[in-house]
């Protein structure tokens, strides 16, 4: 059940209606639990049972941690939770990858084995809800929060359908108090939710899916296309993955607002970043903050000197790459992000004594150059993210950097430029609105209701009309 299908619209409308018609707080939670289970079971009911079962186990483990006092027992329970969650993630997501890599290594050493991949169904959203469960048990272990007593609240934290399959990765300490809070119908919240749903649908259907028309044929056979077509496809993919995932996140946030819940913002105009560190503070924020809190800092963070920090960055981002997918190209993509982040830190260190250069880079022109360079590094690195294999990614990059003739893009370019323009305008508008916490509220308040409503309706109609044929699954669903 994809967010931008009629099926989901009907589902959401039914859930929202029943939810607000239910006068009691606890039955509302149960209603959301049933709806979330139905939502997940629309992909696979057995896997829905699996998610529920592991969530119950995490609930019991956390309760156990609260009950026992000895640090050793608490650590044992935490390890049990980590082994269960990461074990399931590894089994479902990485078994075939590890086995095929092992076979390839053995064959490279002279053995002769044939690898037959195991038929394992990847539970939708496993990477996301596993991280949510881990943040809960780790926070309880660290004493940052008490284990929740109400099983239904905890299950809702994991299973809540707006964030279940592709995030944002929610923190227990943010979500659980919301589950317990009494909720009242709020028109500002409904308006915000509908607006986010409209913007998300537009990003996904009108831009991301359209960019796919430029991307797919070129990435399928880069050696047949010209250098210009390859650059176009690489830029198109960068916009596609942004609009696809941020569109999904907007719709997730919008759906949650309609039910009185607030999820974390996942993207903040990432293409306005002036360096790669800033990019990762604006891109997939819920993941990057999770990695910071539960991987980078436990590894030592930046507390143990310059080079240990660099090492921690490389480890964190390589694992972030592996989190995205069980393929070597994701691993290399993550490593490349780590190298870029480490390179940025080195660059900053080199700049420290060069005051004039620092001032030059801070000027508007210098900022534009830095934004352009950051965007270019994203475009180039995302080639590996999209490529079918490392070799295909290498072919694509070679085609981009060694001028070559070949086929042109399959569509005429006006659809590309219109989409680029939409993303640029969206970023500029977003930058204006987020200048201070009150700007968007003031803008929202001062804009006539008719204009707000008509603009949102126009976005929905445009998205419906200009989407290129059948709706594609969200890219991040595969993770």
């Amino acid at each position, binding site marked *: 059940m994809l967010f931008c299908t009629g099926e989901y619209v009907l589902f959401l409308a039914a859930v929202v209606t029943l939810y607000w018609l239910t006068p009691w707080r606890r039955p509302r939670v149960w209603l959301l639990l049933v709806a979330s289970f139905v939502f997940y079971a629309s992909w696979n009911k057995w896997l829905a049972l699996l998610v529920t079962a592991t969530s119950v186990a995490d609930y019991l483990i956390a309760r156990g941690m609260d009950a026992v006092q000895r640090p050793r027992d608490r650590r044992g329970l935490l390890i049990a939770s980590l082994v269960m969650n990461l074990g399931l993630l590894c089994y479902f997501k990485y078994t075939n990858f590890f086995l095929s890599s092992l076979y390839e290594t053995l064959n490279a050493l002279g053995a002769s084995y044939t690898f037959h991949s195991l038929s394992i169904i990847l539970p939708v959203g496993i990477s996301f809800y596993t991280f949510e469960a881990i943040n809960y048990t780790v926070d309880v272990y660290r004493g940052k929060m008490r284990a929740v007593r109400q099983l239904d609240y905890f299950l809702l934290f994991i299973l809540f359908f707006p964030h279940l399959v592709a995030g944002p990765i929610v923190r227990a300490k943010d979500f659980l108090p919301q589950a317990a809070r009494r909720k009242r119908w709020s028109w500002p919240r409904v308006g915000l939710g509908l607006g986010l749903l409209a913007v998300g649908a537009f990003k996904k259907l009108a831009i991301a899916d359209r960019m796919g028309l430029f991307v797919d044929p070129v990435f399928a056979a880069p050696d047949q296309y010209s250098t210009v077509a390859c650059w176009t496809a690489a830029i198109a993919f960068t916009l596609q993955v942004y609009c696809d995932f941020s569109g999904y996140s907007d719709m997730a946030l919008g759906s949650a607002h309609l039910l009185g819940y607030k999820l974390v913002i996942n993207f903040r105009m990432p293409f306005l970043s002036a360096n790669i560190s800033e990019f990762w503070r604006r891109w997939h924020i819920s993941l990057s903050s999770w990695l910071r809190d539960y991987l980078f800092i436990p590894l030592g963070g930046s507390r143990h000197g310059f080079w240990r920090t660099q090492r921690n960055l490389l480890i964190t981002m390589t694992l972030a790459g592996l989190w995205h997918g069980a393929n070597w190209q994701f691993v290399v993509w993550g490593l490349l992000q780590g190298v870029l982040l480490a390179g940025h830190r080195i660059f900053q260190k080199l700049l420290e004594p060069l005051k004039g250069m620092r001032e030059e880079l801070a000027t508007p022109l210098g900022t534009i150059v830095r934004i352009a360079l950051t965007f270019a590094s994203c475009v180039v690195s995302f080639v590996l993210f999209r490529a079918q294999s490392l070799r295909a990614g290498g072919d694509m990059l070679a085609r981009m950097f060694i001028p070559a003739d070949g*086929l042109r893009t399959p569509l005429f370019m006006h659809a590309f430029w219109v989409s680029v323009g939409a993303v640029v305008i969206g970023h500029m508008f977003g930058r204006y609105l987020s200048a201070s916490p009150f700007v968007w509220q003031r803008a929202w308040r001062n804009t006539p*209701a008719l204009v*707000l*409503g008509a603009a*949102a*309706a126009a976005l929905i*109609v445009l998205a419906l*009309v200009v989407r*290129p044929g059948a709706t594609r699954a969200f890219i991040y669903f595969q993770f």
Partner: protein
Amino acid sequence: MADCRLKSWRRHNRRAAFWLLGAFAASQLVLAVVVDQGSLEIRDPEYVLLQDKLRDREAEAPDNPVAVFLGSSRVAHGFDAARSRAESDATVFNFGIPGSGPYLQTVILDRLAQAGVRYDILVLEVLHTFYNATGPRSLDHSLLDGARLSAGEAAGLLHYGSPVRTGPLRRWFYARALPSNRHQAELRDALQIDVFRPGRGPTPPFEPIDPFGFRPLEIPTDKWEEFTALAHRQYDPYFARFRLDPAPWGRLLMAIDQARGAGADVVIVLMPEATGFRRLYTSDCRDGIAEMIRRLRDEVGVTVVDARDWVEDSGFYDHHHLLPPGAAAFADRFHSDALLPALERRAKSRN
């Protein structure tokens, strides 16, 4: 003061939410009116494409007699009209539309009359499965896409037999309720979005159609078995018994009257079938169809051409749709056995 501001904030958001819903509903209403009443190109681009081609062929030889062949996919893919043109001085045009049954045939004739498109001989396919009332629903119920009809054209569905009308009417209603969804591809084409470089994008939905309306099908041989199984799943239940369904029968008579009203002669054709289908006829079904043919000949007074066994099995890929060689063979025999006599009869009657 704060309370007043909060109330105003709530009211503002409530209004915005209602304006969203209202503006969306209004946009759909406007689009529905445009699609339904204003633009046949958006509502039924397949028809417009064929009509334009027919007009072009007529303009090439304005004095030639014109024969138009209406029918389902069996006709669209199974009648190579250009071969008849080569053999005679008549303009022969294949107006076959996949899924087209008796209801859509009358709609097409109405539209041709309104557009002032001339035809002298109307060849009408009678696919008996459309006229068989023994199934749980008729083929028009399953295949007729109500979205391509205007409100006026769809109004006839209200009196088109209860098991028939529900499907197309439902499709019509959904298409008009949310035109930006159902007619999305057509609207996108009208807005010139996603223009593929020639030969580089997905095949346009109604290509390839040759200048005479024929749609040659090249189906890979490894797909034949799959399509044959599909065809039998779809049609086998209609070969056990035959009871004439009065609703499509009434539409067939209406189509004949329309053609006669336009001054055209009518030829009814039962399109070729492979033995895989022909051997399925039970005696009840065979007798029922024979009775329908008799009534058409004797009571309605039209020429009926039963071409079900005209083409060898090798001419089909799924026992009822013809491959290009089969379509050529059928067109040749149809020309000599049915079209030329019809043209001669018409010439004699005119003289």
